[in-house]
């Protein structure tokens, strides 16, 4: 079976690079689009006992295209007192950090953009660039709501970066590597109390880390119940207040593409990534099946993220900070300690 699917042509380096770039772009855009349509438009509506968009395309499936078309038509306004250059730049900074996360994402044995030894370290580092973009947006808008939103976002993202990283550290300790391919391999080849049937997805041993990571992800994405930076009943839409047209669209894509990227990270770190039990890791077929498997796991994590999003109302700003510093960070530190002890013991 694998021989059939082996490509007859060997690609040269530049051809591979083009494929990888296109693949990463498609993954980000497709992931964001699927998240918006499946979760934001449809699942949210069903959870509120309504149908959601129904007019554009069958069951409203083309609604996203219609929305994008609407935003593209709108005037790209820059406030008079705004710092125009920074104001225009901000959405691109946010979006760039999202696209850069995918650089280290493995989708199969050869289907990756780069295979860095410090993969997850780079991904988490790059994800925090978006803070700068959001701060820039809040500052450059020359609007008090934007500024408050930007500062709230900065405080929130920095506070929740920590538990996120600490939750990942547990996985890294258990896998013994920062390389994402290595982490996938560690889960594939691991065993649960000597039984190696389905490998050892780290969600089993790192369930605390998984929950902390998901909570922190929720806050990093500024989604309810952690949507203080865009709290529409308090500060209009926070740092996005002055944005319209394509720049608002970029923020919007950025939000959901980041959701996709974090879901992919969670799927890789905790659910076994692109690997499938019983299939050899170096099998060539995994270059095709792998991305689909990762996508399915990503949708699973996305479901959890959006389920929480649609269920809970917003916290208060001080509760948010207290939750990160007094609850999540101690828990993840304890998790790291326990992981260290158990790693040495076994």
């Amino acid at each position: 079976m694998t021989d059939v699917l082996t490509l007859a042509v060997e690609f040269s380096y530049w051809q591979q690079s083009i494929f990888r770039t296109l693949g990463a772009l498609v993954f980000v855009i497709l992931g964001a689009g699927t998240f918006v349509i499946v979760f934001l438009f449809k699942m949210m509506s069903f959870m509120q006992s309504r149908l959601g968009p129904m007019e554009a395309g069958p069951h409203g499936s083309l609604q996203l295209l219609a929305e994008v078309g609407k935003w593209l038509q709108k005037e790209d306004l820059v406030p008079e007192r705004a710092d125009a250059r920074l104001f225009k730049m901000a959405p691109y900074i946010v979006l760039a950090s999202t696209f850069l996360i995918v650089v280290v994402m493995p989708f199969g044995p050869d289907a990756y953009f780069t295979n860095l030894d410090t993969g997850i370290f780079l991904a988490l580092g790059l994800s925090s660039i978006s803070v700068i973009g959001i701060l820039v947006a809040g500052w450059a808008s020359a609007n008090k709501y934007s500024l408050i939103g930007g500062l709230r976002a900065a405080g929130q993202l920095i506070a929740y970066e920590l538990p996120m990283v600490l939750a990942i550290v547990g996985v890294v300790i258990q896998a013994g590597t920062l390389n994402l391919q290595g982490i996938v391999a560690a889960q594939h080849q691991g065993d649960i109390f000597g039984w190696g049937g389905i490998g050892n997805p780290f969600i089993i041993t790192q369930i605390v880390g998984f929950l902390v990571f998901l909570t922190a992800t929720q806050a990093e994405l500024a989604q309810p119940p952690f949507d203080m930076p865009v709290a529409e009943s308090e500060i209009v839409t926070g740092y996005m207040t002055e944005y319209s047209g394509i720049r608002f669209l970029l923020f919007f894509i950025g939000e959901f593409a980041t959701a996709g990227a974090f879901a992919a990270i969670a799927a890789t770190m905790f659910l076994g990534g692109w690997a499938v039990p019983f299939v050899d890791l170096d099998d060539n077929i995994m270059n095709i099946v792998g991305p689909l498997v990762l996508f399915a796991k990503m949708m699973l994590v996305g479901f959890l993220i959006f389920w929480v999003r649609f269920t809970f109302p917003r916290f208060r700003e001080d509760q948010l900070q207290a939750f990160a510093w007094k609850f999540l960070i101690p828990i993840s530190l304890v998790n790291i300690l326990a992981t260290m002890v158990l790693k040495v013991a076994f």
Partner: protein
Amino acid sequence: MPLPKPKMPLRGLFIGMKITLQTGLRTFFPRRGIKTLIPAPSLGAHTVQYPHETEALAPRSRGVIALKIENCTVCMLCARSCPDWCIYIEGHKTKAPPRRPGGKERTVSALDRFDIDYALCMYCGICVEVCPFEALFWTPEHEYSEPRIADLLHDINRLDEWMETVPDFEPYEAGSDAKVKKVPR
């Protein structure tokens, strides 16, 4: 006053998540029995897809105000009581034949103009309340939006046409002292 400590701190979170999941599943898989797993959100949703299907309106719902021209005596009570000043009435005195043969000619008021500007109207219904001669009626018709805002000014003929859509008056609950209107046909 310190709040009482919850017995199980996270229980509420899980109850909330259970409720949303249940509602989602109930909307997506509304059928029971053997067809349970066939998704049919159109059946499960509580909302009505408005342009394709219309909701059953409540009796006495306030859509648009209809005018029975013959009943109007140009008393101007409605125009004066309108909080938005959106009713414009003009009339003149005219002679009408006597009621009984040999009687005197009567002086009656005739309507020249009766406009309601629905761009201004706030549907309070005071005009319908104050009308002493039962010339104004609520009808449940509500699909009369216009591309031009000026077209929302309904003139006397348009208001008269709405009379056809006035439903029969539903009696009030027992014990109500509101007057029961008879709809002229």
